[in-house]
């Protein structure tokens, strides 16, 4: 039943929650449609039936039955069902069932004006310390302390997020400067990145980028892969604050991780090669 909204622009959903979120969007739209069509029919019939030329004298009392209260009651009941049956459980799962690092691929995302810094913990699975004093927009945008206990094998990318398919992903979201919003439209993930706070987001992708691209063949979207969008006004470059999301098969993901670890050994702290700043026009 969610396909109907895809005619109205909703992108194909490829995460474990997208089905349920689409479902609730559709249900609410059906409720809206029923109400609107109901009102609309009543409206048009009234206008035609009681136009001045046809009905010279108005009826002082008008409608005397109180079926409208039934309508209002019905709307209330449906809304309660939507809330308790669908909305609350989805939200509970979203905020309460955050997996910890053993159960999930653990990634940090640090938003800053017009770029997404993706911080991976490396082989030890634990993030090294980050410090404001170490922040250097050129060489160390997240202020990673290489000398801290777990910091040696950490690596980060800019605007390039890689995740494995069918695996729980936990993203700890924070921001360096202003409020951003980390949005993965196709995965139905969206969360504000608020300065001073670290907010966990979790999701599981259900198809790889490659599989997703195949669904887009023949549409206007053909050849355009997944992206990280910023969905909160964050300044002048808000419109071009775009990251790229690649969903790999598990083995490809492991290979990618190894490749990154390899760069770390070769080049030390220099990560310039892997940066992708999108349309680089500044």
């Amino acid at each position, binding site marked *: 039943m969610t396909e109907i909204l895809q005619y109205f622009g909703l992108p194909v959903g490829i995460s474990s929650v997208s089905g349920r979120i689409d479902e609730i969007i559709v249900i609410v739209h059906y409720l809206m449609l029923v109400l609107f069509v109901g009102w609309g029919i009543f409206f048009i019939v009234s206008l035609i039936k009681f136009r001045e030329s046809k009905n010279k004298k108005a009826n002082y009392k008008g409608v005397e039955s109180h079926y409208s209260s039934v309508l209002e009651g019905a709307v209330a009941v449906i809304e309660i069902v939507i809330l308790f049956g669908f909305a609350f459980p989805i939200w509970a799962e979203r*905020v309460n069932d*955050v997996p910890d690092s053993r159960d999930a691929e653990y990634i940090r995302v640090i938003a800053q004006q017009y770029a997404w810094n993706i911080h991976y913990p490396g082989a030890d699975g634990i993030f090294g310390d980050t410090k404001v004093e170490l922040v250097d927009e050129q060489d160390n945008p997240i202020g990673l302390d290489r000398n801290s206990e777990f910091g040696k094998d950490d690596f980060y990318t800019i605007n390039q997020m890689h995740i494995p398919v069918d695996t729980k992903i936990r993203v*700890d*979201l924070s921001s360096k400067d202003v409020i951003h919003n980390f949005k993965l439209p196709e995965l139905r993930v969206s969360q504000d990145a608020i300065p*001073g*706070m*670290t*907010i*966990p987001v979790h999701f599981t992708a259900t198809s790889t980028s490659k599989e997703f691209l195949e669904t887009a063949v023949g549409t206007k979207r053909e050849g355009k892969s997944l992206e990280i969008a910023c969905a909160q006004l964050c300044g002048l470059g808000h419109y071009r604050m775009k990251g790229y999301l690649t969903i790999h098969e598990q083995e490809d993901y492991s290979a990618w991780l190894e490749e990154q670890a390899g760069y770390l050994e070769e080049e030390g702290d220099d990560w310039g090669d892997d940066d992708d700043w999108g349309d680089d026009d500044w």
Partner: protein
Amino acid sequence: MAGNSKESIEHHIKIYINVFISLAVLTVVTVAVSYLEVSFIEAFFIAITVATIKGSLVLCYFMHLISERQAIIWLLVTTLVAFLILLFIPLISLTDQVGGW
């Protein structure tokens, strides 16, 4: 307010003096308590209670709320409700926040 005759005003003046003395005493009390070694929670409740009593005295007697019309009382109750909403909902949101500060 009701009763603006000479006698009632003179009666009021006595009340004003008494209220003034109570306010002064309560001020001294609340300052004295703050020098005692009490826990923050206790100090908080004492201070807020004393302030509420003082505030009520000013409201009821100086501002004549005690003999004021229903309409004014309702207006203030509505305002108080709005104020409590404004005070507590952001606070509760602090305790129900995903992720740390």
